[in-house]
């Protein structure tokens, strides 16, 4: 699937849920519920992904090749057989970087026009 993937810019802008999932998976492989918790703690509880939103996003991200399902699983005593673990792909990383760049530029433009302040 790595060949013939579209230019990362073609997927931009990313839906917020997608970017958050990518950020969460950039740290380590996670299963669905772990992603929800990670996103929640990362945003101080402001964004609580619902199961439907999460898995619909995951489905599309899998289709687009942003993430893959991984067979590496934790030790059996920590594992729940129903869980599936996801890993970010190099393409996913590239897309997340492109999105971050886009957002940075946006913020810079906002600052230049005085709509945002440093650190805001």
């Amino acid at each position: 699937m790595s060949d013939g993937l579209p230019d990362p810019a073609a997927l931009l802008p990313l839906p917020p849920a997608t970017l958050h999932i990518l950020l969460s998976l950039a740290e380590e492989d996670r299963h669905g519920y772990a992603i929800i918790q990670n996103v929640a703690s990362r945003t101080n509880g402001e964004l609580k992904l619902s199961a439907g939103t999460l898995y619909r996003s995951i489905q599309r991200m899998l289709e687009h090749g942003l993430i893959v399902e991984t067979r590496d699983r934790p030790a059996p005593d920590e594992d729940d057989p129903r869980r599936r673990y996801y890993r970010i792909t190099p393409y996913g990383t590239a897309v997340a970087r492109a999105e971050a760049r886009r957002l940075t530029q946006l913020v810079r433009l906002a600052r230049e026009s005085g709509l945002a302040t440093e650190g805001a």
Partner: protein
Amino acid sequence: MRLYRFLLHAYPASFRGEYGEEMCAVFEQRRREATNFLLLLGLWIDVLIDIARNATRVHIDILRQDLRYASRMLRRTPGFALTVVIVSALGIGATTAAFTMVDHVLIRPLPFADSDRLVQLYQNNSLRDAKFWELSPANYRDWKSAATSFAGMGCFTELLVNVTGRGEPLSVSNGQVSAEIFPLLGRQPLLGRYFSAGEDRETAPATLLLSYRLWQTRFGGDTSVLGRKILLDGIPHTVIGVMPASFYFPDRDVQLWTALRFGPDEYADRENTYIYPLAKLRRGVSLTAAQSEMSLIAARLARAYPKELAHVGATVLFMRDNFPNRARTMLMALLAAAGCVLLIACTNLTNLMLARAMARRKELAVRAAMGAGRERLVRQMLTESLLLALAGGALGVLIAASALPLLVRLVPVGLPIAEIPPVDARVLVFAALTTLATGVGFGVLPALRACRGGDAAALRETSRGGGGRRERMRSWLVVAEIGGSVVLVVCCGLLMHALWRVQAVDPGFRAGGVLAMRSALPQPKYEKTATRIQFYDRVLSQARQLPGVTGAAYVTGLPMVFGGGVQPVEVAGQAADLANRQTASLRYVTPGYFSVMSIPLLQGRDVADLDTARSQWVAVVSESFVHRYWPGQNPIGRHFNFALADRTVVGVVGDIRVRGLERSNEPQVYIPCKQVPDGWIIFYTPKDLVVRATGDPMALAPALRRIIHEADPEQPVTDVQLLSDIVDAQTATRSVQLWVLGAFAAIAFLLAGIGIHGLLAFAVSTRTQEIGVRVALGARRGDILSMIVREGAMLAAVGICGGAALAFAAGLQIRALLAGVPPADAPAFAAAILLALLMTVAGSLVPALRAMRVDPAVAIRVE
């Protein structure tokens, strides 16, 4: 947890299968965290919102994907896509058009207030086998005062009037209504008001209401028309209102309304019948109850007036049902035929899709192997067929809308509704549902078949694909198509035979070469017979001088146009029981009428200029009149009492079909126009001019109009038409019926032919190898040909047998339309069977020839 699992069913099965377990795990975690009732409640609310929102989105995602895929697939096979669209458009179009008609005429409530309680009342006469006769004002008055079943009752009649004054004189139909009628109908005028309670008294000032059409055409939609005076038959009437465009009463011809007024002397004669009551049932009173009450009242009146009212009863029926049963039969037949076309179309499409699905089994198997679930594949294929059906449905609605103006001629009903049914939301909803059913109907079976078991066998499968069971299934579908088309063709044949039978009926006069036009002389201007005679003489003498004219005459009414006008006959010494008098139709004529119409004069003489009000009162009677009263005797010089006077027979002419080709006709009596009493009912005074000419009679119309205009510049001329058109109009409805059913039958046949061809072509292509082996083993080309044709013939035989049985049953249902042709009419069946066989041969010819040309060496090497 179980509830959550159940809710997950809102997601597509593929998504649920993929993520359902994980989602359950997530839900479990979150529920464990929800420690109190409020948190739990919040969780469930979240869950519900989440599922509602995301399940919809997932469905839309899939739909978008499927549509993209489907349009790609269809673009690759445009011929297939076009065929499916056209075939489904024909089926959906036919059904939608038929439904629109049925809905318009049979189902939709009439556009009046409480229309389900509106009834019409008629007199019936058991002796004369008449059910729907008008009433006399006296009977109406007595019925109305005695009846308790009704919340209100009014009456109306219809009359031609001349509108004069500014602009061309115009002859229009005037609805005369009592003051109760408009409140009963409950429709408000567009402008002004309708008649108030006192306005139907003789002393009230003359007023009128305009129809929207007349308001637009004659007054240019000018709102200042209210209060203006308009001359009707020379009498000024004040315009008090304009009715809306969609208001028709009692039928579509009426263009203005005046108040119906009865003078005191009008209540004297109970045989002077010309009004129709309209009533509204009291709430909770059934039609049967009203009918039995009215029957009692009529019986009481019959005892009170034995001479005039013996055998006279009352008929009550819903206004909604006030049209001939034949129209109902025709509409149901139309719907059934359209349904048949739709079914055949669906069957055909199923077959097409099956063939295509078989051809795509490999592709589907590959997709299944890549992880697409069966549900996903079925859904994908259904999306494709629905997409095609949707295009077909859109085209079908266009077909239906353009077919409606033709279809309305199929069932001429006088209901007070728009002539052409509107294509509105109701119709569109029906079309959408039909489209959906069609798409699913022809898509689901092939989809299930193709995706069965997602088997790996398909991957391995060679071009020998297909298989016994599927072939059988498709064969049955083709059999059904043949059967359906046989039913339609037989019905078509029966109707055609009936049409020929009616066309063969001799009208009794020769219609070719005769032009007719109407100049209805108004009263009181032409109240005196002498004044009218001056007008006739002047017009006729000038008309006869026109080049090419061989004769001209005036008559009360044209045959088949003016069917009524019957009077009781009394012959001295016969039928002493006055109540059992029989009737004959009365026509006043000018001399020369019989020769213009080519009605043979069998005995005696024509009416003459010398037959005046001061000479002996004479009559020319028709042959059946003589048979009835003086069988085997010389009728000339005999007397009978008719139309209020004693008449002497001076001549006998041939009978004509006064009421129509398909109706029973009374004997005819013709009376010289100079013997019309002064002020005699306007209904009977001669108004139709008939002119026989060599060459094209229509070319005379301008000259004749000019002659009438010179005789009286205020006199409008209407209904200019050829007599032959009037006779043709008698069978016009039948012709249209035949055209419509013929079109349906042709479509059905074409589809069935395509079906046979498709099936055999597919069979031949999948059996190429087998045929090759057969040829290699020594089978001759002829054997191969007959093998394939035999297969087609087998299908045809089964289809024809089933179809013929169903056709007989259908024939019994439409018996009312067959003019006496038996439902088991041999020629119709023979023709249908022959056509079906021809179609089978035509359908199997190409595949059979292809099979014949199979080269064994190539066929066996293919694998």
